[in-house]
């Protein structure tokens, strides 16, 4: 059961088989990763930053009343939903997000 969940999550991390194999290869590039990050587009950098902020906020503000016992439900508060929607629509363009699976995005 546990193994099935792990394998299933790994398989569904990507909609493209080539890219899935690339990810499962777990290639370690060391400090080259900083060069790779610098080469990303501003939209990709912003998306990464947003993801990091979401996770860090859960840890840093875990005792805050809006986060306490609300695992990720903070982002379901209407005003937060509105802000997220506005951010998403503001940065969406034809050149962003080709066909990445939702799990891959997470």
């Amino acid at each position, binding site marked *: 059961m546990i193994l099935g969940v792990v394998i299933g999550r790994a398989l569904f991390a990507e909609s493209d088989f080539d890219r899935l194999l690339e990810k499962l290869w777990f290639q370690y590039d060391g400090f080259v990763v900083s060069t790779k990050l*610098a080469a990303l587009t501003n939209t990709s950098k912003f998306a990464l930053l947003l993801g990091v902020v979401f996770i860090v906020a859960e840890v840093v503000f875990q005792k805050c009343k809006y986060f306490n016992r609300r695992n990720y439900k903070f982002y379901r508060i209407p005003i937060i939903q509105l802000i997220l*929607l506005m951010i998403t*629509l503001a940065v*969406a363009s034809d050149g962003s997000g080709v*066909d990445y699976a939702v799990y891959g995005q997470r």
Partner: protein
Amino acid sequence: MALELTMLSMVNANRFIRVSAIPLVIVAYAVFLLIDNANDFPPAEIHMQSIKNIGRVDGLLFGGSNAVYGLSAESLSYFTGVRWYNLSVTNELGSPKRYKNFIKDFSTRIDRMKVRYVVYSSLLPYEIGMIAAFKSDNSEKNIKDLEIKPNISVLQYIRHGWQQKIPQRRNSYGDLVFDESVNCDFSEKSHAEPQAVREDSAVDFLVDMVAFFTSVFPYASIQIVLPSEYYGGLSFDDSKYKQTLRTKFYGFLPEKYLTSNTVKIIFQPPFPSIAQVCNTHFHANEDGRFWRTRNLVESMSDTLQQQISIPSSSAAWRR
């Protein structure tokens, strides 16, 4: 009492956001998409208008934006002494089906039996996941249909206004005109990360394109070109990938193409200088375009039947 009032106002605020604010934002975005779409002039239509003045064409350039920016039909015409036309379009119209339909449509408006050279320059074999993404779009929708994503994001519109919507111009050879509509602002920090997809996917895709081109232009020699990119200071030995891809490509080609020597795969070298790059690592500027085109002519020298003359610089060619 005060707590009840606060709770009530919170409920009202939440209700207002759900019922009014969020739908309003969505409607505003839809209006923005409509305006964005109305201002978009499909690149395919530019070619369809140019075709009326072309007359006879001996060679055709196909591909995505790498070929729009990086290859010149005018230079090729000068080097080879025969008439070329650049039929490349950004993102290859988003799907192979759509691009093939466009090429078929175009071919009915010229004498396709007299086309002797076809160059197809695609970056897809270098982009992980792009071949699958490109193939997965099987929609029959017209390129004028409304997309849910704009060409330029709302944020970019706010930052740069409408100036980015100046349509790019093509000359009578179908080449991009590097004028104020082309903003070459590439910086060193945004150079490419070299990557290569699995050879089998790339080979399947390229062989399929060869079959398509030979069916539309039966008397043409087909040159499959993997374009130049700019890698900055990174050292990247992709010779093994290229050799494997080359071997598999010729291995998968039907016998008839091998015996008639009509199909060739060409790997163009990386751009040696940032001074040859325009706005992304695979878009050449005017000098880079001359450099790439010249390199292509050298690679095609055994295919080209005409006497070719290659000046050493773009300045010499312009004189």
